[in-house]
């Protein structure tokens, strides 16, 4: 697989027509653009230290014609991992289909996306890779409460005659394209999300949905998000309430959310603070997390980040450092 990917990239470099700019991919022609990214991460937690060469991904996308476009992305997660405390090494070089979809554009109000895609909920889930984030870690909100990916159909666009409201109406009635590579394997997933752009800097939105996991857990959720982002400051927050019905007729709820602020000291340097709350009544897992982080981007597609997490569950306190690059 790696050889095939390497061959593809070599061929693309040999053929590419436009000068390459880091972070913008290779534009061979409108039908074929390629890119990729990787991240590496150092973690120190409970006196254990580890180093992970984490996401290694390649992607291709393009416009077949003015109405039809595609995107394919394959990623190896946990490519190489070393426990620096014990010396133990492992890794998984298998590439998984992260995104694989086609878009049929009919109008700005009606675009059909078919295939495997990022679930169109909130902000964090739509820019989930390390290099695009401002902290190495992701809030628990984004990892535990709804499937990160959707293998189905998403009708999306701007609601006609409503000022700057973008919507997604999505549905899945099958298994995920690659069940090894999804946080919550499921067989049914339906939802609606909308986002209102108030100004160039601010927006808010929300979503509702339902999914059924492989273990027959039925979860219904309601979610909300808001963001303000100018040249210097970014403030954002998301929260979700989920009602879970389990196969044994037990039921419970989960509430989670985060609020994050970022101050860009310069274009390259930024300070980040985040507060997270997670409360799963079923497992009695309750955590309050404070995160203080620093981000340095010598160029935007190259990200060096450090952070420290304080957990109300004391043995969870963690230091993280990462380097990630988008090609």
């Amino acid at each position, binding site marked *: 697989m790696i050889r095939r990917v390497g061959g593809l990239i070599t061929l693309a470099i040999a053929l590419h027509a436009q000068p390459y700019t880091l*972070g*913008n*991919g290779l*534009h061979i022609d*409108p039908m074929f*653009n390629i*890119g990729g*990214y990787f991240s590496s991460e150092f973690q120190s937690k409970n006196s254990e230290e580890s180093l992970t060469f984490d996401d290694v991904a390649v*992607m291709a*996308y393009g*416009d077949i014609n*003015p109405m039809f*476009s595609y*995107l394919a992305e394959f990623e190896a997660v946990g490519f190489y991992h070393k426990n620096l405390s014990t010396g133990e090494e492992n890794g998984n070089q298998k590439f998984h289909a992260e995104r694989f979809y086609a878009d049929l*554009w009919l*109008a*700005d109000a009606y675009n059909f996306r078919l295939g495997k895609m990022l679930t169109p909920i909130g902000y964090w889930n*739509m*820019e989930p*890779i390390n290099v*695009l984030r401002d902290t190495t870690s992701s809030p628990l909100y984004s990892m535990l409460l709804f499937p990160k990916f959707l293998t189905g159909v998403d009708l999306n666009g*701007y609601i006609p005659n409503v000022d*700057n409201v973008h919507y997604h109406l999505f549905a899945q009635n099958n298994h995920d394209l690659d069940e090894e590579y999804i946080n919550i394997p499921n067989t049914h997933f339906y939802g609606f999300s909308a986002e209102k752009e108030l100004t*160039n800097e601010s927006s808010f939105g929300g979503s509702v949905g339902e999914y059924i996991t492989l273990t027959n857990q039925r979860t219904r959720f309601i979610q909300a998000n808001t963001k303000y982002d100018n*040249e210097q400051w970014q403030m954002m927050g998301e929260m979700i309430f989920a009602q879970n019905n389990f196969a044994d007729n037990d039921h419970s709820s989960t509430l989670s959310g985060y609020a994050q602020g970022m101050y860009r000291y310069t*274009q390259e340097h930024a300070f980040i603070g985040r507060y997270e709350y997670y409360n799963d009544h079923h497992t009695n897992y309750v955590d309050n997390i404070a995160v203080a982080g620093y981000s340095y981007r010598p160029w*935007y*597609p190259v990200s060096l980040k450090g952070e420290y997490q304080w957990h109300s569950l004391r043995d969870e306190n963690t230091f993280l450092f990462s380097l990630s690059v*988008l090609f």
Partner: protein
Amino acid sequence: MKIIILFFGLLIIVSGANYSVIVSKKLSYLTVSSHEIRDVFLQKRHTIGDQKLIPINLVGQDDARSTFESVVLGMDRNRLNSYWIKQHFAGVNPPVTQPSYESIKSFVQNVDGAIGYIPSKMVDNSVKAVYEF
């Protein structure tokens, strides 16, 4: 009285728009808003009214492009670069570029859905100006 007219004449010249957003003469638009232009050039939308549009940018770091980015798109170059890097991950390319004002004008003249910007003094009856900045 002559002095007052001369003063206002000079004021219009000094404060007058330097650049115009242009489309094909065949299109029915009289004007478009800066928000509509912004959405088209950021590839958020592909149409204004019923017309599918092809945004054309000026290559490089020319004053016209910087002015367009700050006044119409509301972003400086750094912010715009980070926007397009995020769009690259989303599978969206920035608008195509042309090397000169002349080639933008020629493109707009010859392709019905093209939309670009040129110095206002270059606007003539071969194209239609729909916004000035």
